[in-house]
């Protein structure tokens, strides 16, 4: 037997012969001291104030950058379109608030600043403040969230950029086995650049804009679905003042903007990272009494139509491409039609960075007006807060 092993065996025998009571006493005292120490440390931790600064309650903050190189009929420019700051947080258990502040070449503007309830009964949700009214499919998307570089002319001219509105909206989710949502809204006016009403003036109740929208959805198969929407924005009266401040007329000045939209999606659950297709369309009908821009005098009542349709296909994890057609009748002269054809190719570098190349041709059915060709390269990046909203899905 090697001497090292003999030594180990001897040590073990001696250890086993040692008085057990003393060993136990030492061990118990040691353990008790250890436990007491642990107990003191845990008590300190439990009793300690939560390590949090007042800034812990700060809202989630994000910013979207959107820049475009734009060439239209050989006249080019770099366009700083948006540095869009968005902040959002719950106010309390029943309310959340958000704001979107956009800086661009045209200045700094509060695009949205709204509150929304989170716990109303009967499937109701109320939101109020400055918000993007729930009209149509793409009209309430921020510019950088659109599938194309430039907002379709139909939306731009009939709504006035995004559906920005100061007012109140209530949505109701039908308690059914399928998705059906109804929204009712009342606003000063709808459309960021809609100049029919002054947003700041006080007005009679019949000079507000009232909205109703129904939105339904159905899964056609596991990979195919359809979204349908129908809406109407109604402004009962419009007061137009001339240079001297006199009201021209309020008679027969009601305006309705009706819309119908759908989007079909093919999104295979298997391979959805790489494949997919969306086909969407929206038709708008504007019915209003027009006013001469220079004299402020009333002219005829005009009913005009506009709309767009687009297809977007996902080719791979990064690449998407598609086309859009937009047809817009002039709101003063419904025989004057502008057709815009757009092709676009998008590279999603990551989830937070996107490059998009677009080519658009615009034709007006008036012989003296030349065709307009536009090439645009868009670069979009997002920092900070990252949320996937249901409405802008």
């Amino acid at each position, binding site marked *: 037997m090697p001497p090292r092993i003999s030594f180990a065996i001897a040590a073990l025998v001696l250890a086993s012969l040692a008085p057990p009571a003393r060993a136990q006493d030492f061990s118990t005292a040691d353990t008790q001291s250890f436990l007491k120490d642990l107990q003191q440390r845990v008590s300190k931790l439990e009793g300690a104030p939560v390590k949090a600064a007042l800034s812990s309650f700060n809202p*989630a903050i994000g910013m979207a950058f959107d820049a475009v190189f734009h060439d239209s009929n050989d006249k080019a420019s770099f366009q700083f379109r948006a540095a869009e700051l968005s902040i*959002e*947080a*719950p106010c309390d*258990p029943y309310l959340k608030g958000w704001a979107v502040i956009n800086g661009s070449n045209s200045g700094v503007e509060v695009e949205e600043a709204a509150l929304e309830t*989170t*716990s*109303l*009964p009967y*499937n*109701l*949700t109320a939101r109020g403040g400055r918000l993007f009214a729930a009209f149509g499919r793409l009209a309430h998307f921020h510019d950088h969230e659109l599938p194309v570089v430039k907002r379709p002319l139909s939306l731009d001219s009939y709504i006035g950029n995004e559906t920005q509105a100061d007012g109140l909206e209530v*949505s109701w*989710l039908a*308690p*059914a*086995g*399928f*998705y059906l*949502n109804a929204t009712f809204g009342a606003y000063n006016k709808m459309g960021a650049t809609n100049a029919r009403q002054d947003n700041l003036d006080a007005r009679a109740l019949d000079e507000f804009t009232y909205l109703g929208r129904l939105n339904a*959805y*159905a*899964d056609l198969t*596991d990979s195919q*679905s359809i*979204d349908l929407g129908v809406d109407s924005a109604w402004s009962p009266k419009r007061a137009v003042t001339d240079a001297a401040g006199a009201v021209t007329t309020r008679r027969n000045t009601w305006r309705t903007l009706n819309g119908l939209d759908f989007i079909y999606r093919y*999104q295979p*659950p*298997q*391979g*959805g*990272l*790489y494949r997919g297709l969306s086909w969407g369309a929206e038709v708008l009908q504007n019915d209003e009494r027009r006013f001469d821009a220079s004299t402020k005098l009333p002219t005829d009542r005009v009913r005009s139509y506009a709309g767009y349709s687009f297809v977007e296909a996902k080719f791979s*994890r*990064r690449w998407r491409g598609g086309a859009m057609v937009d047809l817009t009748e002039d709101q003063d002269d419904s025989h004057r039609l502008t057709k815009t054809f757009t092709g676009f190719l998008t590279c999603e570098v*990551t*989830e*937070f960075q996107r490059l998009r190349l677009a080519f658009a041709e615009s034709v007006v059915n008036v012989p003296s007006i030349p065709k307009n060709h536009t090439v645009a390269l868009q670069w979009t990046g997002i*920092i900070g*807060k*990252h*949320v*996937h*909203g*249901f*409405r802008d*899905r």
Partner: protein
Amino acid sequence: MRSNSVLALCLSAACARAAAARPLNVVATLPELADIASRVGGDRVKIDTLAHGSEDIHQVVMRPSLVPKLNRADAVVYLGLTVEHTFLPGLLNVAANPNLREDAVKQCAGSGCIDCSEGLSVLEKPSSLSRSEGEIHPSGNPHYNLDPEDGALIARNIAAGLSRVDPEHAADYKKNLTSYLVELDEKLALWRKRVAPLKGVKAVSYHQDVAYLARFTGIEFVGTLEPKPGVAPTPAHLEKLVQLMKRDQVMLIVREQQYAPKLPEWLAQKTGAKVAVIATMGKALPATETFIKMSERNLESLLDALGKAP
């Protein structure tokens, strides 16, 4: 008058009984969570699932048809650690259910929220948060559903959550939990022996979602096809990965089912490593409908690829 009172009493008693008999409406985000919730809840729960199972877990589509399910739900069971951030908070925002509210940090806030990650020993917690590190999860790696041992934690959290929402039937949930854990323990004992040959095997995965699988199997993951989490592979990164795999003698490439086979197969050709396809959610692959089947299938796939299947 007396007959009216008796009738009213009978009606209210009948209503109360009907309410007590009504099963809980439970929505699970992922199929394997739905499976465990159905085992723990038994006939006391009616389960709906949000994801099909074959999607990328980070990109489950926010279908409006899921909104009425969440609107009616008494509870929602979710994996947590922000893994469902692309669809769960957005759906809860419009579901108009005061017991299940959208929450930017926890995904869900309210009495019906059952977060299966509570008490988890979280791996790969980021030391700092920056998007320059890719699409990292602020709370740590959320893919603990790939560790078969974490099935017990998930089941316990579901039992605790259901008992909180429906305390009258807590004893039933506890009994069902015990029965499920016995079955899972038997499987775990078997699996621990079967995965012994995987210990120390060097591997790469497509996405950084295998930390918990590595903890159970002992596989040593040395890289990913994605240069950073959520960032699509680039040629330069793949070339470096080939060099790394050759240098470290990496034998295994783990492809999560949702990723296309093209690049892993190219990598296999370049390095001689074998490709194993795993499910990151239940129902992602055939015979992965339950948590136990998914775990078993994943382990078999890893063993098969290395030619170590029994």
